[in-house]
């Protein structure tokens, strides 16, 4: 039986991890490779690296980082942040990334999804969608959630699937950072209306939030950052509890 995935997310700026890393037992908590190794050895099923740099050397720094991560860890990983062309993706995949995640560039140029899926295969194309509930409707937002669009989350998600994305990473901006749980209603609607895997993101605070994302939200995977980085939840205790709740996990 396919297991539910637990995915720590690392924010990267200029080749270093940023935002809420508090690993006292790591020699250098800002080193993404060391952090990735820690997670891969401690039960993470997959990792996501989200590059938030704005420098001109960003591409090269990210490509170098991907190469180092691929050399080091023995689990799959996805790379996202500022990817906007077939060439960008080619470099990252050739350097050893398993999947890439695109977001704003897909909204600006939806054909990019088709182009990437036909060149590299759907299995390595993740489309990330950030959305916010406005007057009862989930609206897609861009640029890390700063810029609202007229796009409806569910319409966009269906289009993304049709264009060949292999997976959707859905972040609820209303839940992100609250530690009050994932957006389970929207997750469930996505998961039942679409036939590709859905990764839940935004709102993890307690172990039971993950249970709910799988049982109520019907998510295929759950992503979180700070609860793992600050060791509020360890992956092994999380998986123990999920297993007790009857949710299939890899241990």
């Amino acid at each position, binding site marked *: 039986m*396919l297991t539910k*995935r637990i995915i720590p997310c690392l924010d990267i700026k200029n080749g270093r991890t940023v935002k809420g890393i508090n690993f006292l037992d790591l020699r250098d908590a800002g080193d993404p490779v060391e952090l990735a190794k820690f997670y891969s050895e401690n039960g993470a099923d997959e990792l996501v690296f989200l590059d938030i740099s704005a420098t001109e050397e960003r591409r090269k720094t990210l490509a170098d980082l991907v190469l180092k991560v691929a050399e080091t860890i*023995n689990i799959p990983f996805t790379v996202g942040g500022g990817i906007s062309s077939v060439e960008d993706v080619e470099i990252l995949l050739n350097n050893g990334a398993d999947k890439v995640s695109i977001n704003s560039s897909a909204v600006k140029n939806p054909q990019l999804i088709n182009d990437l899926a036909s060149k*590299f295969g759907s299995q390595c194309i993740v489309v990330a969608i950030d959305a916010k509930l406005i007057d009862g409707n989930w609206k897609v937002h861009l640029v890390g959630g700063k810029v609202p669009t007229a796009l409806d989350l569910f319409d966009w998600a269906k289009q993304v699937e049709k264009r060949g994305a292999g997976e959707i990473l859905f972040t609820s901006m209303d839940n992100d950072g609250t530690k009050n749980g994932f957006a389970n209603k929207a997750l469930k609607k996505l998961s039942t209306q679409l036939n590709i895997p859905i990764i839940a993101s935004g709102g993890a605070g307690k172990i039971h939030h993950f249970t709910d994302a799988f049982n109520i939200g019907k998510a295929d995977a759950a992503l979180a950052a700070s609860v793992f980085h600050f060791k509020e939840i360890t992956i092994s205790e999380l998986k123990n509890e999920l297993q007790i709740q009857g949710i299939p996990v890899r241990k």
Partner: protein
Amino acid sequence: MKIVIVNYGAGNIQSIKFALNRLGVEAILTDDETKIRSADKVIFPGVGEASSAMQKLKASGLDKVIPTLKQPVLGICLGMQLLCNTSEEGNTKGLGFFDVGVVKFSNSVKVPQIGWNQIQNLKSNLFEAVSENENMYLVHSYYAPLCKETIASSEYGLQYSSALQKDNFYGVQFHPEKSSTAGEQILKNFLNLTSNISNQIKR
């Protein structure tokens, strides 16, 4: 020991090279027939679309080389699928080594299957020291149905072949290079295979 990874321009082959490096083994990426034939072990990887991968193999003549290799060969993911008779993906003929046709998962399950799933009914020395129901990482929309060459099965809406073996040819649908320590064990087992394969199928 000389390990060759067949390089025919299909997808991410760095990962397998890196995984072998972590095991202390240097592998050569090549499409050169002489180098492939003289290797002790051949790894036939593949990520991407079946019909275009077959075209690339034909263009380089490797479609004639691979099925005639005598040393242990490990097809991974699309590599395994290409060793089969046919694939529904792009309706292409395969290399015809495994007597089974690759078909698409039905819509009763999410497609692609992405994630960790158990391998069961393990029947080969490839799985030495690997536990029944060990989790492996898989990413695929097409699968090989169960057949006489099945040496491991997995369940995703139905039971299908997650590994195949015939003579010196092994194929795995999962990615051992991305499947943590259990995957590394399978790679080690492959590297440890001798060319004498006569008694390696445990049935």
